[in-house]
């Protein structure tokens, strides 16, 4: 089954699709470390705009944009941010977080479609002029100008207002930034009126091959699951949901959307302190708000994403109950997308089968327990199909 439509060999369309997957990766990185929504895209845009003033090497400009986009992907799986029963102390968490750029660089280095300098810009994005940055504590001209662009973009975007950013850059000149870079920022700021440029990615700089997008999506989903403490979850649910969809007679387009949703839904849990199944029984009504919040968050990450956006509807409705008592309120029966109905039942079944021990023990076999919720929480037809699929997979 293919998740995406054929681009007909158009390299630009292939690159645009890959850029959308990268944009989602950036959004997931932001979610993992608690950055506001859309931060990565804005950082990419500001970093690329600043590069015109700060970094003389034009070949590095696309790398700066993609490094801005992927600046936080190292946070996925970083011990400072992972869901852990024994959270680190504040000091240890801060020290662990220093490795986010280096981890991000290692990931970027494996992504052959990115401009060559991207990994190093990600690696050194938090280095400070005076040697107090991280991870490498580089100093002075040992820090590439391109990396200073990203640090400037970060300060600019985190400031309360543009004038505040200007003041902060001046105060940190000679400490976080080289005086030359701070001066270049000031020039850019005044020429630009202090306005952030519109987000746009230099997709022509990507060397995309057919299939890269799906491979990347699978890799991200694996990393998100590992971060959430549920390694391999999306793969189990994917096998189950796809078999259920086949048995239930769902058409190919909806199956493709479901396949995407299975890969993307775990990202919604990055916003909460603990992974969903650690907090409540998937069949209990008491967890419904949390599930709906996570579902909405996962859908929110796809805002304005042309390639992945069609999975948002399935993601948003996966906390709806078949009888209409779930969330979003009022959604019931066939008004709930078929993909959402299948995804909800598959997640619940997998959680009862593979989740924490207290959920797995007692109160009957997982399929029996899902079956008791048929007609209320789950679509009875989907539950029947799921039972058949689960039996085939057992």
């Amino acid at each position, binding site marked *: 089954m293919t998740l995406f439509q054929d681009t007909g060999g158009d390299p630009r369309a292939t690159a645009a699709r890959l850029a959308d997957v990268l944009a989602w990766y950036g959004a997931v990185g932001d979610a993992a470390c608690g950055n506001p929504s859309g931060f990565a895209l804005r950082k990419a845009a500001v970093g690329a705009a600043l590069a015109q003033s700060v970094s003389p090497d034009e070949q590095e400009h696309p790398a700066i944009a993609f490094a801005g986009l992927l600046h936080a992907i190292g946070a996925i799986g970083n011990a400072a941010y992972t869901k852990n029963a024994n959270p680190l102390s504040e000091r240890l968490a801060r020290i662990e977080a220093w490795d986010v750029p280096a981890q991000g660089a290692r990931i970027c280095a494996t992504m052959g479609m990115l401009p060559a300098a991207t990994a190093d810009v990600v*690696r050194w994005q938090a280095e400070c002029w*005076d040697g107090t940055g991280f991870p*490498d504590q580089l100093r002075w*001209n040992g820090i590439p100008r391109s990396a200073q662009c990203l640090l400037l973009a970060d300060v600019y975007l985190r400031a309360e207002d543009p004038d505040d950013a200007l003041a902060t850059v*001046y*105060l940190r000149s*000679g400490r976080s930034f080289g*005086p030359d870079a701070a001066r270049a920022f000031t020039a850019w700021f005044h020429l630009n009126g202090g306005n952030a440029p519109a987000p746009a990615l230099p997709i022509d700089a990507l060397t995309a091959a057919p299939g890269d997008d799906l491979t990347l999506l699978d890799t991200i989903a694996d990393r998100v699951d590992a971060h959430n403490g549920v390694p391999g979850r999306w793969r189990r649910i994917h096998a189950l949901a796809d078999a259920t969809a086949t048995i239930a007679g769902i058409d190919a387009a909806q199956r493709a959307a479901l396949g995407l949703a299975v890969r993307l839904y775990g990202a919604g849990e990055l916003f909460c302190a603990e992974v969903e199944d650690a907090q409540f029984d998937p069949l209990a009504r008491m967890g419904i708000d949390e599930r709906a919040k996570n579902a909405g968050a996962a859908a929110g990450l796809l805002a304005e994403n042309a390639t992945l956006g069609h999975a948002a509807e399935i993601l948003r409705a996966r906390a709806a109950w078949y009888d209409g008592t779930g969330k979003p309120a009022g959604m019931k029966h066939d008004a709930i997308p078929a993909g959402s109905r299948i995804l909800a039942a598959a997640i619940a079944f997998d959680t009862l089968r593979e989740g924490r021990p207290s959920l797995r023990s007692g109160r009957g076999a997982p399929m029996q327990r899902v079956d008791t919720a048929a007609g209320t929480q789950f679509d009875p037809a989907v539950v029947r199909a799921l039972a058949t699929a689960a039996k085939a997979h057992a």
Partner: protein
Amino acid sequence: MIELPERTRRVSPSRLLELLQRYDCHSLVDPFMGLPTHLNYLKRHGISVHGGDLLEWFVRVGEGIVVNDQTILRDSEVAEIVEMLPGRIYSVDMFKAWEGVFFTEEQCVYLGVWHDNVRNLRSDGQTGLAILGLWRAFCYWLQKTQNPDDMQDIQPSELAWSYIRETECVVGTNLRRNTVRRGDVLATLAAQRADALFLAPPARNSFRSADARIWMWEAWWQGNPYFTIEHAYRDSLLGARASEIPAYSRALSNILSQADDYRTIIVQTTQNRLGDFESLVRNARPHVEIVAPHPYEIYLIATK
């Protein structure tokens, strides 16, 4: 006006860690360590590190961030370093020779006060942390002499206080023995055994282009504003005189032959100097891999 170089040697410990992990190395010796922040990074990631250098202040900082596993400087202790303490007699004229040339009168007085206060610290770890923090304040001043309008005026004690407090974050343990020593490359090689040897050899006659921020801080630590590193660098940096091209090559070959016990040798160089090193390394070891992520950052990895 002081000249600050337009290029700074880049040692990326996160990249070095990736290389060490690829070659399954768990301990490392760096006989040209310089400021050992890269060893601190490797230590934090579980590598047992051993460094050496000829300049004493590098070694002192190493005692603070490489050898030291737990001692930090608390607020009250930092306050006693950065300000003149009542009842203590200070040699406030110690750095008067720099006044008007590099620094203001107030800055020279502070340099004398800091020198005396740091010399009075009893813990090696705290001394190293204080030297590192104060050096950063000193670098800020030198940078400001070049960019007076682009950088903020910060009260000396406040600047030093903030930098010393930041050093607290880099103190930690890897539950392994880590050392630093003051000595030339051959002495360091003979004193330690490790899985990997990291060499980032200075260029021939590099004392001529040594960064003022480095040698002036050694002068500060020695309490002698007229101190020069030229003698030390010219005669003993590579364990032998190496001011001529053949002598430099001979000295490097000697270092490589002395490093026969090391399973892996990582030589960091640049595109421009690759030719100087490649043949020497290939003569010393049968297997040499070149990793070149950047023209300023090229690694020759030699194994047996």
